[in-house]
């Protein structure tokens, strides 16, 4: 029997954003995160959702952020970049495992039902 997690599992959007941050490595900020989720997961998230989710993940301690060097012009602005922290990786892993275990055996059933129909 699986151990009961003390924290609730990640939400769907949180999973997507965390995975995107993981894949983007050092270049993870809002614009490429949104683009990656759209191209790879086929999900269109609003900009606001991305920022709010990133803030929430940071408050939970799953990601950390820092500011890049500003643009080399007058009044140039900095990017806010994100990186996964160990608790974030652990949370991703727990979520994935929970989904896998729940889905065990159902894939065949779904497949067979479709064939019957």
């Amino acid at each position, binding site marked *: 029997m699986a151990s009961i997690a003390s924290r609730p599992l990640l939400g769907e959007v949180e999973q997507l954003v965390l995975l995107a941050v993981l894949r983007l490595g050092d270049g993870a900020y809002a614009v490429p995160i949104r683009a990656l989720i759209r191209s790879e997961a086929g999900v269109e998230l609003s*900009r606001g959702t991305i920022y*709010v989710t990133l803030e929430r993940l940071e408050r939970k301690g799953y990601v950390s952020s820092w500011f890049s060097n500003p643009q080399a012009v007058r009044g140039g*602005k900095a990017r806010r970049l994100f990186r996964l922290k160990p608790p974030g990786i652990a949370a991703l892993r727990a979520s994935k495992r929970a989904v896998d275990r729940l889905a065990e055996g159902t894939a065949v059933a779904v497949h067979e039902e479709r064939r019957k129909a």
Partner: protein
Amino acid sequence: MMRWLARAVIRLAPRGWREAVARDLEEEATGGRRSDGWLAWQALCVTVRWRWTFGGEALVSDLRYAARALLCAHWFALGAAATFALGIGVNVAVFSATDRMTFRPLPYADPGRLFIVQEANPDTGETYGRLPALWAVLARGRVAGIEDLGSVGYFTAVGYALAPEPDAPVVIKLVSATHNVLQILGVTPVRGRGFTEDDARQHRPLALLSYEQWQQDFGGRDDVLEARVYRNGQPVDVVGVLPQGFMPPAAGAAQSYGLSLDDNLMQTATVRDGSYPLLVRLTPAATPQSVQAAFAPIVGEYERRLPPPPPGRNIFHPTARLTPLGDFMFGPFRNYVWVVAIAGGLVLLVACVNLAGLMLVRGRSREHETAVRVALGASTARILRAAVFEALIVAALGAGVGIGVIAASNRALRVLLPTLFVSYTEPLTDPRVVGFALLAVTASAALSGALPGVRLARVDVLPALQAVAGRLRAGRLRGGAALLAAEAAIGVILVTGAALTSRSLIGLMRTDVGFNPVDLQPVTILFPWDAHQPEATRLHQYRRALEVLRGLPGVEAAAAADVLPIEGARGNPFGGGYRGGYQQGQRWQVTDQFFRVMGMRVLAGRTFTTSEVQPAADVAVLSQRGAALVWPGIRPRDVVGRVLTFPGETPLEVIGVVSDVRSSYAAAPDPSLYVPVRTDGFKRLMYVARVQPGGAVPVSRLRDRLRQQVAEPTLVAAGDELARLRAGLRDQRFRAVLFSTFGMVGLALAAVGLYAVASFEVGVRRQELGVRLSLGARPRDLARQVLRESLKPVLLGVATGLLVSLWAARFLQVFLYQVDARDPGTYLIVAATLVATAAVAAWRPARRAAHTDPAVVLRAQ
């Protein structure tokens, strides 16, 4: 690249994100060649989403901060909440009592097309309570622009119910109405049916009960349609129940009145007949002006049919005037409502100003704390918000207490409120009343928290941080003087109102009503109505009842009249009905001893002897004003012996002149003509009994004796004249109590505000005062200086308040009785009271200034 709009929007985003979001959006805009509008829109979407998700946390934390701050200063919070309890409580009460009369549309279909036609005198602009009935008859179907017309009588048409139990008569009030009134109003009864033309043609005595009467007097019984009520002794069948919230479309009628069918209002059509004002529904295309013009030929036809006026008599050529139904029903009360509402608003305003002043003072002593918050990154908006939240908590607390008190003391308030208000008062749970309460709380919080919040947010961080925590920094309290002046000005207005209304009430209570109301009881005795009974038999029956009343133990004397002039009801026209006469005087038919029983004074001549009353002789007694109306400028004793002639009547010899009688302390006495009771057209008698001191008419014994000696009566009841007169002062008493309470609160708040500000100023200037004392300044001079400086804004406020009161006097004048609203003496006393109160409030801080110990102050530095 990033245009100003997007930049402005981005500023609303949280600090940690502003730059990054701007950079991201710019990057996308450049890549995708997006417009500036797109940029601004995206910035807005992101910011709104952010605030929506995380804004609540800051809000809750600000609210908790405000609550903690108030807990630390609980006395301050409780005091401020008490003033708001009064301010908001009063306004909610006023709103709930007046909403229906003032702000809501009338509960009829398309009420904008409903008007009342009245007879108007174009020379004076006056309108009259009655209108020639001929107008109504002639206007039917002949005036363009009128869809339908009917008439509604006054609520003096009183019904007496013998239901639900035959032995316990319940008085219900009915307003007489023509059969088509409900159709004109577009109202359908909830039970039974309305009146029909057929009912009217057959003169069926029918009534429609109001929903309130059905619920309260008949217990909401299903068999209410089988109930029977009696109107002036005549049985009346109940045919239906009006919907809840229905208002009888009559001036000053309470919501709980039902309707009784009376098509006579529109069918009698001789030149002398009077009718009640016409209720008309205009066609959608018609305007009041066009209909008014269309009435001209009818008025002309009426004038042609009139008999020629007596020689030397001025007559006017009347016109028809259309008044919107709402104005007709509540017009006279709306002014009153506005005065009460404005006074209530002023109390709330003074509470707000006072809280603002107190918070301003408190804010200065919390400068250090605020500076720390600003240094840690609190934005201007959050400092401001915390201040408004403090005010909001105080206001909400106050509102809760205030509304709770109103709800608990509902019965007491109903006794105090003017009668008409009580009938139209909404319950406190009504959504509009709740909405108003919330609005009042929010508005007053914003009003009182804004100025202190802005001042707090503008704190000079560095010096405030350098100063020792908890110690006041030097520097004047900016905005304090203005608040004090405002408080004093509002205080003056409220106290002036209190002084004027109280003087008016006292004056009224001393008014001579022209008769002696002590131990005087009006007695109602009704016998079953029989239309076929000869008038002489009926008169004989009522005269025998008078003898029974006179023979009762405890009754010293008794008399009767067709209508009692003391009950506010009107008798017959003074001049026998010739044109214009009914608007000027009243004729009363009385029995012997009437003047003695009433305690009226005989000014000249004598009153009726028993032989003159039975049978009625051609003699008359005039009241003082009646004599002045007929023979202006002639002394009462010279009037005696003259002969009064009315067209078509036997001449009357005037045998005496008596004092004028008022039906209430505030009512102007009607010019009156008293004649002996006549058999012609006799309907009934109303009795008045003089009882032994402190005694009362034994009603049950009277009923028994009437049953044995005369006939089975329909109704026997006795009232207390003195109590009725005093109840008539209810409106005046209400206004006096209201303004006195408001005035006291205004005065107390002004004093509290001044005390707080003056104490603060002295505290801030302790060092300066110490130095000046050590340099040889006299303590007395210092005290005087503090007093002078504190009183300066108060004097300014008092002057402003006096000017505003003088301007507003014209609105208050209507409600005052024999008191000039611009009486200089009153204003002088009010100003002196305000200044004296302010001086007392500033006295303690001034004394403290004088008793500053230089050694202590200087050592503390």
